[in-house]
């Protein structure tokens, strides 16, 4: 199966957008998951609701809200533009949209794994002299590694498939913001585009399957390493 240049571009862009989205949102997702799992504070329910919002809202609404906020005339977008950072109608915007859409899934997976770690182990670490940050890095983090991995794979997969928010926020510009799903959609809109669409569908299947297989293999490795396998 040989790919035409625009199909190849869509695949590479999708991988780049999803990879960047996943890597940048992961640390934030870990922190938010930890806060939701371990801290009590007023407004916790609200934070949880906001985090889950992209899961519930129609993606097109999320995309439009992103455009309002991060567009060149938006509150945050205008501010960022003064530093030369433009998100709307750029691949970076696609990464932002993909990251936000995948965020609730990541937080959910990681939060569950943090809640599964016995807080009494952290208390034991404290009595041995470990401060909060050391406790997190040397006890909690290694034990939730499988959850983080699961969250990362979910976030990546969601980013690969993200369509509605992306097309609303950054449109569908070949070579710039045209990810795999946008490209499949675009090819299906033009006569004679089915061949390209089918090739991209097959690619999507391969990437998805590959991601799941790699994550299962990594999860087994990690489980062995932390002695729970």
């Amino acid at each position: 199966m040989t790919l035409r240049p625009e199909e190849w571009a869509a695949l590479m862009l999708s991988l780049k957008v999803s990879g960047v989205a996943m890597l940048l949102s992961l640390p934030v997702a870990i922190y938010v998951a930890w806060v939701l799992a371990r801290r009590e504070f007023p407004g916790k329910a609200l934070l949880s609701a906001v985090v889950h919002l992209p899961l519930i809202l129609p993606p097109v609404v999320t995309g439009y809200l992103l455009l309002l906020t991060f567009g060149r005339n938006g509150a945050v977008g205008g501010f960022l533009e003064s530093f030369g950072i433009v998100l709307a109608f750029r691949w970076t915007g696609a990464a932002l949209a993909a990251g936000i859409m995948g965020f609730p899934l990541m937080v959910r997976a990681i939060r569950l794994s943090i809640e599964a770690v016995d807080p009494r182990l952290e208390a034991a670490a404290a009595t041995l002299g470990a401060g909060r940050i050391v406790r997190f890095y040397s006890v909690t983090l290694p034990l939730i590694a499988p959850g983080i991995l699961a969250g990362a794979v979910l976030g990546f997969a969601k980013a690969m498939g993200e369509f509605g928010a992306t097309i609303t926020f950054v449109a569908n510009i070949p070579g710039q913001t045209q990810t795999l799903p946008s490209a499949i959609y675009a090819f299906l809109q033009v006569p004679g585009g089915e061949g390209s669409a089918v090739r991209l569908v097959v690619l999507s299947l391969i990437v998805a399957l590959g991601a799941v297989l790699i994550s299962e293999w990594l999860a087994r490795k990690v489980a062995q390493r932390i002695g729970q396998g």
Partner: protein
Amino acid sequence: MSLQVDLRHSYPGISLDVQFEAGRGVTAVFGPSGAGKTSIINIISGISKPDGGSVQVNNRVLFDADTGVNVPPEARRMGVVFQDGRLFPHLDVARNLGFGARFAPGGLDRIELARVVAMLDLAPLMPRRPGTLSGGEKQRVALARALLSRPEILLMDEPLAALDDPRKDEVLPYLERLRDTTQVPIVYVSHSLSEIARLADRLIVLQRGRIVVSGSVEDVLSDPAALPFVGVREAGAVLPATVVGHEADGLSRLALSGGELLLPEVKAPPGSHLRIRVLATDVLLSLEVPTGISSRNILPVTIRSLHKGSGPGVAVQLQCGEDQLLARITSRAAEELSLCPGLECHAILKATAIPRGSIGLARSNIPT
């Protein structure tokens, strides 16, 4: 080093109001489940915060409700051995120990590590993961980990409660060894009097959040007034004994300050100092020297006091040489024999009545 505790804390169902001091040696806190024992450990170690009172080590204030001082657990230098071990499952034994030593003042001290590993026989376990250890092995590792953090106070929260009897017997000698070699004050929480009788120097009896009796283990366990608090079946004096020799028929001859005992083979060489616990329900009294009786263990005693409880029994405190024994008999027997303080009589012990678990090494075997 000395720990001063004065704490008040209420939570649903119980209010704690406890004051005590723990110096060198083992201070046992005994009480039934729900008496507040674990809460005391959690409050001293800083894991939970009490409503009022203070916690001090020497003159270092760790918690004071009045001044608002509340040192976090990581800065308290309390070594805690939990009932469930709480080893880090993702680290092998060597790294678990390393975690304990990492934050000790001066970091990991190789000589200290070698000493602790040798004392607790941990060398073969070093590369293993906690998931592959037996309960007793886990507790030995947990103990080593706490020791290597070089705590100022060692807190043990029912460290043997999760183990079956053979595992307990496997770990107890290590605890005796620790007691005899460490300078660190130990607070030992337990609901097992046999462990306390073997290990502790002082005993605090807790009931529903209050201290009801406290004093040296020997005094409390031979105090007839304390019998209702420690439980009729569990009550029994602790007394020192020295191994005189082992007989050909498998019995061991032990010297007490007030006589001799013949017990089934005691695994300790002649000259060893032991502490044995004699349950009050295993002691019979006789006014004359009994003859034609199967027991070989007859000790001359003087009645010090009688204590009538609410039930049909009477607790009798006996002087046996320099030590005290406790006997529990029926009040009918006490009346018919006209038992009264000052009366000289004979205590009869069945040789097999003292289980192995009730015989421990005494402190005076310390080689130091």
